[in-house]
């Protein structure tokens, strides 16, 4: 089976879908000839032509609006927002049309679009190339939100997103494009090729939206994580010497509540880890759901390890990033009671 990093896996997903479905079109800033600033769309214009993979003006609102219009026509646009930090000009299109079109027209019109955007820090991108805005989208009713943590899932989830008839926000943690990253920024970078999830089928397959994956089975505590933080949580649990069950949520909306409830029901403890800022972050929703569903199983208060409630500071990146040391501390805290 071919080995792929996350960039190649995402490229392969779009390639497979463009070959299978003439209605799939790909566009965004620097996406066409150049193939995207992270190279995710490399070669697609050459293979499928300029009217199926093309560059756009720098106008995120325009990109989303055009995608919605094409979706209404019957196409399946896959658009790239160069960095998730630049999605805000498109907010009105996402919130007021994409998310509600099916509802407001009682199904007469829909927006079957996929919005890809690199997210997260770890590349010294400062406050405008590091954000994790997933909770902004999960708060909007009508948008699905996906965040993969490895190449196999990235491809399977992206194909599912493209085939899905609802709008999907597909956030790609840029720090793990080229290799898994456990938060130890001072250690050498490991490439994906040594990781089992870099074995990616060349053809079509899907990973269903709404299904979490258990990446480590354990008995003492459940860790809920997604994206880069899955790898950080694995390292943190190792370092804390705690027998943690680590769930990679993969899809935030729709959320795999059954898997979460079954795990917390078993362990009685829960740690939530995300890179995004804490207040009103997706961890708050997870904590609320866990206490609603598992209150009588809980043996200790739920703990959140997250980015601080500040913009992402350039030079102090590693003091901001919730690394394995903080995850280990969080695990010890949740185990203490």
């Amino acid at each position, binding site marked *: 089976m071919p080995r792929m990093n996350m960039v190649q896996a995402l490229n392969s997903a779009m390639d497979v879908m463009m070959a299978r479905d003439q209605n799939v079109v790909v566009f965004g*800033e620097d996406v066409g000839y150049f193939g995207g*600033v992270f190279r995710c769309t490399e070669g697609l214009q050459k293979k499928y032509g300029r009217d199926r993979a093309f*560059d756009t003006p*720098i106008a995120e609102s325009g990109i989303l609006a055009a995608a919605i219009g094409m979706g209404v026509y019957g196409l399946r646009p896959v658009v790239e927002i160069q960095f998730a*930090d630049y999605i805000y000009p498109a907010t009105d299109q996402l919130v007021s049309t994409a998310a509600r079109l099916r509802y407001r027209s009682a199904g007469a019109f829909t927006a079957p679009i996929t919005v890809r955007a690199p997210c997260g820090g770890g590349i010294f991108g*400062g406050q405008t190339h590091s954000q994790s805005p997933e909770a902004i989208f999960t708060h909007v009713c009508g948008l699905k939100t996906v965040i993969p943590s490895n190449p196999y899932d990235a491809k399977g989830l992206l194909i599912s997103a493209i085939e899905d008839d609802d709008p999907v926000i597909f956030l790609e943690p840029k720090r793990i494009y080229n290799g898994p990253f456990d938060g130890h920024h001072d250690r050498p970078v490991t490439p994906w090729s040594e990781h089992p999830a870099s074995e990616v089928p060349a053809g079509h397959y899907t990973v269903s939206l709404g299904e979490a994956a258990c990446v480590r089975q354990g008995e003492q505590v459940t860790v809920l994580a997604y994206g880069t933080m899955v790898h950080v949580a694995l390292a943190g649990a190792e370092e804390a010497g705690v027998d943690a069950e680590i769930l990679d949520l993969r899809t935030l909306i729709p959320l795999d509540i059954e898997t979460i409830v079954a795990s917390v029901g078993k362990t009685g403890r829960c740690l939530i880890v995300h890179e995004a800022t804490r207040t009103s972050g997706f961890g708050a929703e997870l904590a609320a759901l866990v206490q609603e569903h598992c209150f009588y199983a809980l043996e200790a208060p739920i703990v959140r390890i997250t980015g601080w*409630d500040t913009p992402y500071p350039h030079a102090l990146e590693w003091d901001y990033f919730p690394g394995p040391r903080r995850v280990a501390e969080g695990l010890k805290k949740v185990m203490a009671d």
Partner: protein
Amino acid sequence: MKNAAPLELHVPEPPARPGEVPDFGWLKIAPAGSVARPDIATPPHEMRGHAYTLIRVLDERGAASGPWDPKLDAETLRRGLRTMMLTRAYDERMFRAQRQGKTSFYMRCTGEEAIGVAQAMALDDRDMVFPTYRLQGLLIARGWPLIEMMNQVFSNTRDRLKGRQMPVLYASREARFFSIAGNLATHLPEAVGWAMASAIKHDNRIAAGWIGEGSTAEGDFHHALTFASVYRAPVVLNIVNNQYAISTFQRIAGGEESTFAARALGYGLPALRVDGNDFLAVYAATRWAADRARTNFGPTVIELVTYRASAHSTSDDPSKYRSAEEPGRWPLGDPIARLSGHLARLGEWSEERQAQLATELDGEVLAIQREAESYGTLASGPHHSPATMFEDVFKEMPWHLRRQRQEMGS
């Protein structure tokens, strides 16, 4: 229409891709001195042609001519030349520092130096400027110390922005230089707001804003023009058309069928389209627009036609999308060489003095760089303490941030 061919999507292409011969034949270049200079009180509809031509003062031989010649004395011209050269020397050193791993990122303005420098000289130092990330020449021309700029680039202990911003996203209240935004175009309508405030307070200061041609596609650009037009705000709105937005040629931004200056016309604003590599033309056009704004005749849009001679940033590799020969074929030349040639023609400069000054400026920049590095670099520190991260989110720190600061353990 029965027999019409099926519809086709038009996707603009640049004249040449890597491996093809670069061609700038599409750029219509008006002869130096040929464009009329209207009175600053001219109503916008009487000068629509200025959005489609190219105001030039310096010709190919370095001679200045025509009504736009600002007739600056040799001393002022040498100051302009020196500042452009200092900007380039600074860029080269910072670019190298990034390549040496001392910081994360850098952006040069190579080939675009006349824009920041001549415009800073044409504006009043008290005017408020809202720049992009490629206007370091503007900050340098305002006399802001290079050491301050380098401390920011290195995110060191003396960085006034406390290591919070990526390199080159400067901010200086003292230099009346607005905090540079990473989010494109957001600052342009803010410049208009500042100008409206100046009018509300019957002040005599104006605002100036800059935006790349690629970023004119953002809605915020159009908000700037609407508000500037409706309230006749005292503002100069500059579009720096350097032909590229990262990998995309300006046609993708809407430059194929019209000029960027002509965007102004639909809003009833006057526009000047200027040779951006001609120091004298840039100075004169900016002065015209500034005088117009200051005397209550309202805003002007200026398109500065130039060329991004180096990469978009240290993260970019232009050989992937444009021919390596293209920069050398840009027909409007290099702003430093052109002003230097003009001064030499006036008998006020020479190749020897040029070479000598270049060496001197590089030495000056290097000495300042050594000092800046003694306060730390991004790679090796020291930096501001992690606890400072929680400051300035709000004026007073709320309990949850104090608690998080404690949790961080510093």
